[in-house]
């Protein structure tokens, strides 16, 4: 499998996801600067977290118009897997690759902590190492992770099995106080229709190493390597 990580000015989880991928893959992914208008052949494109363009104007808005994003969208439409984490999720929604938008957290504050997530659909290259209904733990660290979309789109996402993760209580139940940012239907991550693109606010790369306090995130990278090799 060949993996590439897109780097925008202001990306800051690019190295973290590089390390996590290398751990599962056994070799370093390629780091791709946002000005590249052409991409090498890749099986997985990662749009990492951070504050592209400072998150000024709207989170992800300016990065969505980087030269490289046209190519990422084209590849995604052709079936290349795209994993968009945190700011990456904001970028791909702004670029129209996934429906909806990520608005400011309901608390209006930045939130950094571990959250419990319920895996809603294990039927994808990203989630194959999880079981549907399993509760996993990953950190969030964002100011704008409040997922919003109109009712019709929401119904379509829900009906099409496009919800990947939901914020939940440790026992897997959905509770208002387990939804850290006000996302509609407690959505933490969604797929495109074909489940080849995943956007998610939590950071799997931050709990993929026992020294950091957990390894639930690692299964995502291991699963991708298995599915795409």
């Amino acid at each position: 499998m060949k993996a590439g990580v897109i780097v925008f000015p202001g990306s800051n989880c690019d190295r973290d996801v590089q390390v996590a991928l290398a751990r599962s893959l056994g070799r370093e992914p390629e780091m791709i600067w946002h000005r590249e208008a052409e991409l090498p052949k890749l099986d997985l494109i990662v749009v990492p977290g951070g504050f592209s363009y400072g998150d000024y104007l709207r989170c992800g808005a300016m990065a969505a118009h980087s030269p490289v994003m046209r190519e990422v969208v084209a590849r995604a439409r052709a079936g290349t897997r795209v994993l968009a984490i945190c700011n990456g999720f904001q970028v791909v929604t702004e670029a129209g690759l996934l429906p909806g938008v990520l608005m400011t957290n309901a608390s209006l504050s930045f939130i950094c902590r571990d959250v419990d997530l319920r895996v809603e659909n294990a039927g994808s290259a990203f989630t194959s190492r999880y079981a549907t209904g399993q509760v996993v733990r990953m950190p969030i660290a964002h100011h704008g992770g409040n997922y919003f979309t109109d009712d019709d789109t929401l119904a379509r996402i829900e009906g099409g099995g496009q919800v990947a993760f939901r914020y939940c209580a440790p026992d897997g139940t959905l509770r208002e106080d387990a939804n850290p940012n006000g996302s509609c239907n407690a959505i933490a991550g969604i797929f495109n229709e074909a489940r080849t693109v995943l956007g998610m606010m939590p950071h799997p790369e931050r709990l993929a190493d026992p020294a950091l306090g957990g390894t639930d995130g690692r299964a995502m990278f291991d699963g991708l390597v298995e599915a795409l090799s």
Partner: protein
Amino acid sequence: MNEQAITPEIVKSHGLTPEEYQTVIEIMGREPNLTELGIFSVMWSEHCSYKSSKKWLRRLPTTGPRVIHGPGENAGAVDIGDGQAAIFKMESHNHPSFIEPYQGAATGVGGILRDVFTMGARPIANMNALRFGAPEDAKTRHLVSGVVAGIGGYGNCVGVPTVGGECTFHASYNGNNLVNAMTVGLVETNKIFLSSASGIGNLVVYVGSKTGRDGIHGATMASAEFDEDSEAKRPTVQVGDPFTEKLLIEACLKLMETDVIIAIQDMGAAGLTSSSFEMASKGGTGIEMDLSAVPVRETGMTPYEIMLSESQERMLMVIAPEREAEARAVFEKWELDFSVVGTVTDTGRMRLVMNGETAADLPIAPLVAAAPELDRPHEPPPPPAAFDEATLNAPDSVMAALTTLMASPDLCSKRWIWEQYDHMVMADTVQRPGGDAAVVRIHGTNKGLAITTDCTPRYCTADPETGGAQAVAETWRNLTATGAAPLAITDCLNFGNPERAEVMGQFVGCIEGIRKACEALDYPVVSGNVSFYNETNGRAVQPTPGIGGIGLIDDIAGMASPAFKRAGEALLLIGESAGHLGASLYLREIEGREAGAPPPVDLAMERRNGDFVRTLIADARVTACHDVSDGGLLVAVAEMALATLNGDEPIGAEVSLPENGLAPHCWLFGEDQGRYLVTARMDDVEAILADAEAAGVAALRIGTTGDASLTLTGADTISLAELGAAHDGWLSSYMAGA
């Protein structure tokens, strides 16, 4: 543009005394013009010249086998083995954060980051030490909210984890909150960059953001106390641009992989003035700059404004002319301004030109050498109100007193703060906020750096020397509690108006305490910062010499943390207890009194106890470790128990009173120094106690870990859930306005 006549009023408004102005004229051999006067004024301000503190700072021990660069560089550098060094420093942004909490705190973080990456280091951790006024004060909530959001807003965006800090409240900070920010960076020892401009004919290059009229005279503002109309005299507040800072970090570190940069210096307080003078003065050279080449944001900026602007996210560097294209390409890739603004000369003078005309021409060495050094009068502050433990009654309920303490503003959980900071980015935070020291793994290795900041201002108020020593000892203890070998400290000395002998007396006393502790613990000072004039209408802050310490962990697999690990283990107290309640939190929070001397700090015992504990950790003979500080023994036990609430299974403890003749509340809440709590497997207890005795270290088994509650044998009990809710709830409900 410089034609304005220099009147005594203008001299005065620049904070120079008539005598100082006379020296200016002697150095210049003529009257200065306004730009030149402005330059003298900032260079000789308290903030830049350390005129009140220099004499005393010289007393601090600053060398040691691991010290690569001590005070005098942008930040301290300490050898951590394997060809790497840790670069770190702490700095205050108190005054700006009071005027505009968000931007003031944010730009404080930006400034300290620049001090560290200027030296070639990648910043790997931020810390923040915060002191606010009384919670009841009308402004406090607004200040907390703005400062925390500002620190997060900046640090989160640049992608450096904020891994810990302090946050306490006291009425003495009502008009003067303290915001101290610390950055730790990592560099290859043979790739450390310094700021000495050398090589006649080399280019002086300006990179980063454009210059605006920001904060003109910020440095002189930080050198004067607030009065009623300070709010009206505000200079233009500096706004931070963390996105540009992130680009600047990446561009500078990229260029630093080559040997293009000869010298580099961030533009901090007093901007272009202090950076250019510092570079030329260190190199023993001169600089000629064309101010028309400085990238500006506004039209019509004068030389005076350009030289004194404190716009953020700017750096000055010296490169060889033939490397210009290479350097420019890097900054252009990151879309940052890059402008050749001058050359290094052999004249020993700073010559500034604008639009072809000389705007200023000053001799560098005489100006720097003549920077005032004062020996201000100092007198020991009055002793604290007398206090005798024997006069105190026992509390009705120990657990109720504990709950009150745990829910008090100073001891409550600061989770509301650290959750607004990205403390995990860079994926090396192996001990998150909430423990003793934070631990950050050295990327790509199994080594770790333990980092902490500490100071107990109420001790410094009661007895400055003991307080100074205690602050150093507490950092040393917090590092030790993780298993780290303490390496060195940075300091951030926050005091009132040094023109008052009492304040100077506090300063001198604290320095003396810091000196003694550093010497006794072989724990040198490698960088620091002084902030005076934290005073409003004659009311000074409590003396607050913040200390930031770092320590090295050889293998993070063997580090210790405060959380209990298993039920049924022995709880041991290391160190001697005298039941000292003077200047304690118990006395303040439960009895409503601020009285008494602080607990004595016995540095020899401190060292003995710490070395013993560190060996226990290294030998994997203890399963958890926590130092005993604010609030005393029972608070420390409670903190070890509450730390388990984040994990799978809550673990509490039962503690029994020893027969040592102390009143129970004195033993349980006394703040005697040099103590640690550890847990150990039952089988190991006897041997540990025997080894302690052999090492001359007091050790006592005080209890056993157990179910999800805290119990004092034969007395009270409380569930961890109840105690945890009280501990966790205070700050968030306070901030919600409840």
